[in-house]
């Protein structure tokens, strides 16, 4: 299937070790190959500033009170939301990474990712709304 990827959205449809089989990277000229979980974790910990295509990495997170943020914190840092927040605050303070973009919910996240090349967010199966529709072009 020749598919031009407009969206770089990684849908987390399952958890744990099934991630590498279940995940599908999509996006603008970025997802021609699958991303290993390790590389994605690096991005969500602020340790990756530029994608291979040369675009800046923009991390998109739901608001800090959300369950999705909590899940992302657990996945990326194996910590709670506060520590994940603190982690980002410290690396942004030290100038090692740009601050992530916080959105209200998953829908806004999808919208943001769609509109901003290089942006990336995580949708969690357990916390994604039932009526969420992901359109892949």
């Amino acid at each position: 299937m020749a598919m031009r990827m407009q969206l770089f959205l990684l849908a987390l449809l399952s958890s744990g070790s099934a991630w590498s089989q279940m995940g599908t990277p999509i996006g603008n000229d970025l997802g021609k190959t699958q991303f290993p979980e390790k590389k994605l974790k690096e991005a969500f910990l602020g340790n990756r500033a530029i994608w291979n295509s040369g675009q800046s990495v923009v991390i998109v997170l739901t608001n800090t009170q959300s369950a999705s943020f909590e899940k992302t914190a657990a996945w990326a840092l194996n910590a709670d939301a506060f520590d994940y927040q603190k982690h980002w605050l410290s690396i942004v303070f030290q100038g090692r990474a740009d601050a992530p973009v916080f959105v209200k919910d998953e829908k806004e996240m999808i919208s943001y990712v769609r509109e901003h090349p290089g942006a990336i967010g995580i949708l969690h199966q357990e916390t994604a709304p039932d009526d969420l529709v992901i359109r892949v072009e």
Partner: protein
Amino acid sequence: MNWLNSLIARIWGPFGLMAASLLLLVGIYIPQQQAVTLREFQVAELDELVKTMAINISVAGKYDDWSRLSEIFGNISERPSLEFAALILESDGQQALVASNPPDITMASVIELEQNPLLVRAPFEGGAFNGIVVVLGSEAYLDSELARLNLPLQIAMALVVIAVVFLYFFLARRVSQPLRVVREVAESIREGDLTTPVDGDTRIWELRSLNLALDRLRSGLLEQRRTNEALTRGMEQEIQRQTKDLRKTLDELQDSRNLFGSVIESALDAMVIADGKSRIVEWNRKAEQIFGWSREEAIGQALDKLIIPHVHREDHNKGMEHYHSSGKGPVLNKLFQTQALRRDGEVFEIELFITAVQIGKEEVFSSFIRDITESKKLSRDLERQRELNSELLNGLPMLISLKDVDLKYTFVNDRALEALEQDRGNMIGRRENEVFETYWVEDSMKLDRAVWNGEKVAPTENTLQREGDTQHFLIGRYLISVGRENPTSYLLTYGFEISQLKAVQQQLETALSTKDEFLATVSHEIRTPLHSIIVLADLLNQSNREEEHAEFAENIQSSSRHLLELVNDILDFSKASAKRIELAPQPLAIEQFVSGMNRVETGVRLGTVSFRKDAEGLEGVTVMADRMRLNQILQNLLSNAFKFTEEGEVCLRVRGARNGDRFDMEWAVIDQGIGISAEDQERVLHAFEQAHSGISRKFGGTGLGLGITTKLLRLMDSELEIESTLGQGATFRFKLSFPIVEPADQKQDMDSTKGDSISGMRMLYVEDMLPNQMVMKAMCKPWNLQLTIASSGKEAIETCREHTFDLVLMDIQMPEMDGIETLKVLKSEDILPSHVPVHAFTAHAGDDERDRYLQLGFAGVLTKPLTPQELKQFLNEHPSHVEGYRN
């Protein structure tokens, strides 16, 4: 323009001072003010920055609006005005530094900088985030900013300095140059250059006036100098003439002084010159050596305090006062001895000569001092040596006299005066025949002359009668010389008193005579039983009548026993004389011991003599005593008692009593014999001596018995006492004290209870003499003993290789291989089992030999001769360790 120059000359100094002050003010104050302002500005800017950061963190925390955080924080590290920025979060009252820029900042370093005014902080509170943002301003940035701001000022100041320097040189040219010209002119005038005129060309009128005045001064001085030079030339000529005369005088004076000084310095005596106030004015090298003070130190010092001992100072000062008042000095121009004081405080003997000399109006005193410490010491040593020699000669235990060539006494020692009963005054300076009136004087003087004539004269023996006693002297003579360069000869006569030697010589001659008598007696005593033994043995050989055999054998046995006792007595006396007898105490039941005493067979039939024992207080008492030696004492005394009693009774009386843990006894042997005269009682106690030689001939005996008894009793801390009257018998009495043995301590008498246990014993007898082998065979035959005989050491070794024995008796003195060597081979080569005892069987009966044999490895020592009973008892007492033969 002169007024302008004058004005400038007046104001340039104050102007320069003001300009320098202004520069100092501007150069210090303005940079300080700028630093303060810049620091305040920096703090305000930091405060603004940190507040912005805090607000944005608060917003990001509260509203998840992180959009400005990257923008604010991202360029922190690029700000040169910041040393660092730190993010500190607070949670549960605890602060933790979560991030810093640069990242190596720690919480501790932030706390450490609390007091730094450039440390600025701002709190934030944004939902989950509470804490503070801290930034520290950079001192280096402040410094660089300050330097940048101060650069224009520094340039301006440099321009001002350049201007001031320029002004200085300008003014110097205008004012200082003319003044320098004036100074140089003044200098040249001072140095004598009065010919160069002063250049008065200057634009400052005060200076021009000064130059004119200076030039007039120069002209006046020049004229004055010319006048002075004329005067000086005249004076110089006069001075040169006078100087020449003075130098000549001084040279003569110096020569004289050098001569005087060299005389003083080379003097052998110390020379000290003092003025009328006793201040030292001259001090030569010898004085330095004697007193220890250098010339520099001594000159000017008070004489009395420097070299006169404290005890003589007052006399010295009085003498000086007396001389000053009267002009008389009793010690002046006289040589006398006194004492002086060295630098180290030592007071020493000196010889002193003082003379007074008038020099101008002043009088000085020259002292010539000689240190006589050594000569005094030598004199004292000589005197001491003389006393020592005199003491030595007088203390010698010999007679010493010296005579001169006229044979007159020049010295007689105390011992000689005492022996000759003379006074020294009566002998010194007189000849021998003028002092003594004895028969040997003429002979003695002849011998003296002979010695003077160089003849050798052997010592002679002279006698002196003194208080009825005769003293013997051995007199010798020889010549001695005294002095090295002019020797003087004396005849030295010495004499030893040899009275004691004479007495000893007499005693020795008597002792030799006694010993000859003793040897004759012993010879007789030995020959008599030997004669009996030889004759009876011969008769025994010839006789065929059995009834005679027993009688002959009994006589042979009696003679042999007598001979043995004699030899034993001689040995005992020899050992006792050499103090080699040691007592061997053992428990002794004293009552049984006394009751066991029997009459003693003397071998001489002297008629009917009864024997009575009278003992009291001995019941049940056991003492530690040497049975054998006590028995020997009593046997000797009883033997004498029976020997010298022809008819009557011999009584042994013993009285005993406890004394604490000891038992005291008084023993007495009383006979009714011939008795001993008072003068003979002392003699009989000595060895070899009987009351008179006729006793020996009549009663026999060697005379050793009482001597041995006396020595044995002394070993037991006792003395033998004799009470006797000639013809009325004698009583020999002594006291003994022995430790009591309590019944519990008493040992069983093994000897009496031991049974006969030698039957079946396998005994090897090693003996080279055939008669002794036969005797042993004869002795052992009745005892059912398995006797094997080896005739030599080698045969004994071979026999032991082939047979087993329970006991070995080994003769010591054998040809080829003696008993000791044989024993070594038997032991070293394990030929004989180690448990088989080897006993020495020898005629060497001394204790020394016995100990030596035991040390060499013999189990016991048997002494020849030996009766069958004694051998049997020995074998019973020394059984083999192998008990098998008894079965």
